[in-house]
């Protein structure tokens, strides 16, 4: 039996849900194929990470009708303080420097997934197949056939791969990728603390890698602690008291007494970059195209920008009567995404290498660099806008409405 749709979205994670919503709203019939059974990705235990939602991404999620349900769980970021251990020079982003809205938000992934899932469920034009996975792909001049694990065949005009940094679709399409293991592990946990965090996010560059304190609603913060793999393994074997002590001296005492709330998660950090993001009737989105270092909290934001541009390019070509898999539209998408992706890869990879290095001249140079940015307001505003995801030619989903 062959089912038909305009666009098949492979993967039902944060990017897959967002892509399905955006493409259905652009007028396409969408089938989303998710490996896990319905609801399995929504449990508290599935994903313990948090994401930063830049201001531009919030506009997109708002436009897709998914922000309202998330907003209640979102902590606005009012300031970002970047520091290099005890160095006196540091970079300070204050939302008042650019307007009357926050720099962005911190959200726990489980709340993002639930809000997106609810929005997908109430969006006409989306069919969800789950649990299901793609076992074969085959395209001809007019479409792509996806064979699913239960033998069904799905005929579509375009495949949007949102199946993560180990993308099976990318592999089946024969698109190579480059992986750089940083030799670092991300240790993620939530802490409850005595004092108010006042909406301030801290990014500390410690010799082993960045240490981020991200404010959550209430007197809670998410810690993202980057550590060399070998040390991380030992840290994760520590007794709770000893673990808390390790955190406490890295964090300082400005938040008062601390308590680790919930489980401690570990994620190996790698840079994964696909050799190309399009192939005939295929486009890679989010981590399937590029998994970047989480140092700047830009992973999901980068995926949202992929999706906003894709939905705009495909929506434009749909209004001209063109096929959703039209190669010209895909080339336009890839061209518009290339610079943003490469600059973020370069910045996050570069920052991590620069700051994970304790050689004095390098340390001095980066302190001077941060200080120089701090002293030149236009440059700083540009950096802030970059952090907010509102630099360059914006897709319409990112432009303020009205």
């Amino acid at each position, binding site marked *: 039996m062959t089912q038909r749709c305009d666009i098949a979205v492979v993967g039902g994670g944060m990017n897959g849900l967002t892509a399905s919503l955006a493409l259905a709203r652009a007028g396409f019939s969408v089938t989303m194929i998710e490996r896990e059974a319905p609801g399995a990705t929504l449990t508290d235990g599935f994903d313990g990470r948090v994401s930063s939602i830049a201001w531009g991404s919030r506009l997109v999620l708002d436009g897709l009708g998914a922000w309202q349900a998330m907003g209640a769980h979102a902590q606005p970021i009012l300031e970002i303080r970047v520091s290099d251990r005890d160095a006196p020079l540091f970079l300070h982003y204050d939302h008042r420097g650019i307007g009357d809205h926050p720099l962005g938000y911190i959200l726990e992934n489980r709340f993002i997934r639930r809000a997106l899932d609810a929005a997908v469920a109430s969006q006409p034009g989306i069919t969800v197949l789950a649990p299901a996975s793609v076992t074969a792909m085959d395209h*001809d001049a*007019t*479409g792509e056939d996806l064979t699913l694990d239960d033998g069904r065949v799905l005929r579509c005009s375009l495949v949007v791969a949102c199946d993560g940094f180990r993308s099976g679709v990318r592999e089946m399409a024969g698109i190579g990728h480059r992986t750089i293991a940083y030799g670092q592990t991300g240790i993620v946990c939530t802490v409850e603390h005595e004092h108010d965090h006042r909406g301030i996010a801290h990014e500390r560059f410690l010799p082993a890698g960045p240490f981020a304190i991200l404010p959550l609603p209430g007197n809670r913060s998410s810690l993202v602690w980057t550590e060399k793999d070998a040390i991380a393994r030992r840290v994760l074997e520590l007794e709770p008291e000893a673990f808390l002590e390790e955190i406490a001296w890295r964090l300082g005492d400005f938040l008062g007494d601390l308590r680790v709330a919930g489980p401690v998660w570990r994620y190996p950090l790698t840079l994964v970059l696909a050799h190309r993001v399009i192939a005939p009737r295929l486009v890679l989105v989010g981590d399937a195209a590029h998994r970047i270092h989480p140092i700047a909290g830009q992973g999901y934001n980068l995926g949202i920008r992929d999706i906003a541009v894709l939905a705009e390019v495909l929506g434009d*070509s749909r209004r*001209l*009567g*063109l096929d959703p898999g039209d*190669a*010209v539209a895909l080339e336009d998408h890839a*061209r518009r995404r290339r610079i943003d992706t490469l600059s973020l890869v370069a910045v996050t990879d570069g920052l991590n290498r620069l700051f994970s290095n304790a050689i004095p001249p390098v340390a001095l140079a980066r302190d001077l660099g941060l200080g120089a940015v701090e002293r030149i307001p236009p440059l700083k505003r540009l950096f802030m806008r970059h952090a907010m995801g509102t630099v360059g030619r914006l897709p319409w989903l990112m432009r303020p409405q009205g």
Partner: protein
Amino acid sequence: MTKQAEPTETAARPGSIDAREIAGFAAVADQWWDASGPFRPLHRLNPVRLGYIRDALTGHFGLTSQDRPLEGLAIADIGCGGGLICEPLARLGATVTGIDAAPEALAVACAHAEGAGLAIEYLESTAEAVAASGRRFDAVMALEIVEHVADRTAFVADCCRLVKPGGSLVMSTLNRTPRAFALAIVGAEYLLRWVPRGSHRWRKFVRPAELARDLRLGGARTTDISGLAYDPLRDRWSRSRDVAVNYILHASLDGPEHS
């Protein structure tokens, strides 16, 4: 249609057939839909042409549907090739007839439309023969073709005859200017190798005033002429006021207003 034994320009009658031109397109027919193949320039040009056609026709016929703006229109595409224009027009709601003298291109067009699930009529014929049969359409497209026909004035007259009273035509071609020679022939054919050498002959390029005169002789009034400009940095075509190289125009026939 009679095939010409001697594929020379002067021997080519009836008006719209130039056998040497058709043989050239037949040789690459199976690559019509390969957007990185020999027809890549047409694929790149397609969005701007389709946008112009959509806007010209919805404006002329007073159509307002968002989803299927060309619903209810019968459109003929003369020199349709592999169907690069026919298929999008069908998706926009039009009832489309593709007409081409090259059977190889039509075979590709038929197979592609069937795969895409689109009902499009393809005729192996010429503007002259279809006009003689008495068929009439709300709108006729003649895109990137007048620079390839043997007798342009006769061809344009045949196109006009295919249009119902009150209907319209869209034509696009290359201007006969030194800049068009430099860009379309030296640039596109020889330097960039966008299109096969010998695809175009500059002598056959058409000045807008000449095309407007041919249309007037056919009874059509030219209502708009727009340039099509190429931005090499974004590899993208857009509408412009500069008609010195590529241009597209809309013309209408007098007659009862369409409802």
